[in-house]
C-alpha cells in the first residue's frame, strides 16, 4: 500500500455511500484506474454490503407474530383496566 492507497482506504465507505465531495471522488477514481489493488478493495467491499443485504433478511414466523400481539393486547388491556 502506498500513502495514497492508505489515504483512500479510510474513505472507501464514504465513497460508496456518495458522502464525499465530487473532487475527492474524482481523485479516488483516478487512483483506482491505475491501482488494481485499490480497485479490488472498493469492489469487494461493495460486494460485501450487497451480499449481506441480499442474504441477511429474516422473516417473523406466524406463531411468533401471534404471540407478540397476544401479549401486547394482554398487557395494554390490563393497564387500561387498572386505569
Amino acid at each position, binding site marked *: 500500500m502506498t500513502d495514497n492507497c492508505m489515504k483512500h482506504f*479510510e474513505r472507501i465507505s*464514504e465513497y460508496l455511500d456518495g*458522502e464525499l465531495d465530487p473532487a475527492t471522488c474524482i481523485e479516488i477514481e483516478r487512483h483506482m484506474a491505475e491501482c488494481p489493488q485499490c480497485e479490488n478493495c472498493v469492489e469487494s467491499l461493495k460486494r460485501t454490503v450487497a451480499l*449481506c443485504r441480499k442474504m441477511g433478511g*429474516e422473516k417473523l414466523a406466524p406463531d411468533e407474530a401471534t404471540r407478540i400481539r397476544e401479549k401486547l393486547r394482554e398487557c395494554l388491556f390490563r393497564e387500561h383496566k387498572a386505569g
Partner: protein
Amino acid sequence: MHQETAVLRHEFDPIDRELIESFKAGSSEAMERLVERYENRIFTFGLKMCGHRQDAEDIAQETFLSAFRHLDRFRQETPLKNWLFKIAARACFRKRRKKKGEPDREISIESLRHEDGNGGDYFIPDPDESPHDAVLRLELKTIIDNSIRSLPPKYRMVFNLRDMEGFSTEEAAQIMGISIQLVKTRLHRARLFLRDKITAAYREGGLQ
C-alpha cells in the same frame, strides 16, 4: 472528536399519523395495524443483534409495549419507524447487559489493512449469482449471519441500521445517540471486518 448534531426534517407518514390518532382514541385495530407495519423489521433487527429468535421476539414485544405506553408523549418530529428503532436499540443493549453477553470492543483499522500484502485477495461471492440450490443458499446465509454476529455489538448495530435497515448516516446517529463521524467510522470498520470474515469462511472450505 468533532461532534455534528443531526438535524433532520421529515414528513411524518400520513398513515402512521392517522393510526396513532385512532389508537389514542381507543382503537385496538389501529394498534394491530401499527404492529403489522413494523413488526417484521423490528424482529429482524432484534434477531440480527441478538442471534436468537426468542430474544428477538422479546425485543419486538418490549419495543411495541413501550411505544404504545408512551405514544401520547411522542411528538412526531421523527418518523415513527425511527422512534421504534431507538426503543428497540435500547432494548437490545438491555438484553445484552442482562444476559451478561459479550463485552463490547473496538476494531482497530490496522487489523483490517493487510499491509503485508496477505489477505488482499478477497473472495466475496457475486450477490447477483447467489446459489439456487437450497443447501448452498443456507450455507451461504449461515456464513453471512455468523459474520454479522461476530461483529462487536456497537459495530453490529451501526451495520444493521445502515446497511441492513437502510437508515441514513444521520438517522443512525440519531437512533444510537452518537455523532455522525462515529457512525461513519464504525460502519467502515464493520464492512471491512465482514469482508475479512466472509473471505476467511470461504478459504476454510466453505462454498465455492
